[in-house]
């Protein structure tokens, strides 16, 4: 799974509610749900040092 452009979003608040990312070429919005397979893969790739997640605007 190729993940790029990962960035938190926070729904106009101070609490992050999801991650915008491009996954295998498709722009996606990934929820912060540990049972979501994309979120688990993002956390794995962050832990492996392969990607980082930018802070929300």
């Amino acid at each position, binding site marked *: 799974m190729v993940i790029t452009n990962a960035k938190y979003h926070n729904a*106009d608040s101070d609490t992050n509610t999801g991650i915008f990312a491009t996954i295998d070429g498709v722009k*996606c919005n990934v*929820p912060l749900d540990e*049972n979501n397979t994309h*979120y688990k893969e993002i956390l794995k790739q962050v832990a492996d040092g392969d990607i980082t997640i930018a802070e929300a605007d």
Partner: protein
Amino acid sequence: MAIVINGSGTVTGLSVGGLPDGTVDAGTLATNSVDSAELIDGAVDDSHMASISGRKNLVINGDMVINQRGGTATINGTGVTYNVDRWLGRGVSSAGVFTLVQSASSCPDFRKALAATVTTADSSIASGSSYRIQHFIEAQNMMHLNWGNSNAKSITLSFWVLSTGPTGTFGGSIANGNYDRFNPFSYSISAANTYEKKTITISGDTSGTWATDNTLGMRVNFSLGAGSSKVGTAGTWTSSSYEGVTGQTNFIATNGAALYITGVQVEQGSTATNFEHRSYGEELALCQRYYQVHKEVYWGHAHVGTGNRIYHSFPVEMRAAPTAADTTTASQNTASNYTENTYTMGWNSYVRGNANNVHARWYADVTFTADL
């Protein structure tokens, strides 16, 4: 031998088959002649009830009818690539490539099949490489099998398969979600271009960790090719990551060959019963727990400073909060619009205007993925 009806009401002397077909029919049995008093507990055991009992198939979309994604999937990497709902392919980057697509089927009772076609052959598979078609079963849909403890029950896998190319012995495996319990199986294809029904009984795993929640419970692997470290002995549970069987024919080695699979059923017990056909609507709802396609529509006033949000409900609760992917099809007077937050029960869209008090509209195609 004479037929005797003694004083206690017992009938003796009937040989097996002594009552020819049609002897007892609707005209013979009067209304209420066989009721709960005659059918005592255990009179008809599970093996004879299985063919008429409901919800026996643990596989969703085993007849390959639901196809929300559409199109052809090219499997040229190790990641998960879904095609027909609930069915996915996995491979090896560039060494061998195959495609998955829903296909018309000439199989009796099944009008659709999943076709895997080799487009780049790999005739010298690396030891740790594996090509396969997979189906994932959610853990709480199989926890009644009691796998992982001494009460583990057997399952029977049945399916129809057709090869346009190689024949011989083929393989696959059953595995757990943790990817540390495997049981290879084998089946043979005796003739090309002919649908054959295969039946395999697999003992329940009394060891290992088998989840009981909304995570991945059971992997059903149909191997298209596997290296030497990915194959093992059929019918034996092991912690080695076997996805095929020793000595199997590697389908991926034949360029242009196609393997068609349909009518896949996994059921409790050691008897393969008739396939459980469910209605299109039922099957679609079962699939929508993992993947849905929708259209988002926003039509109303918007402003620059604050985004507008609209909540939408899913028709089926999804397995987990899904990943959303939206594609705008039309918009007007919007500065920003996207699918914002997702939940298992629904999602909200977000629209911000390009000026204050404008009439904004936004249309988008959006998919939601909560696959295992």
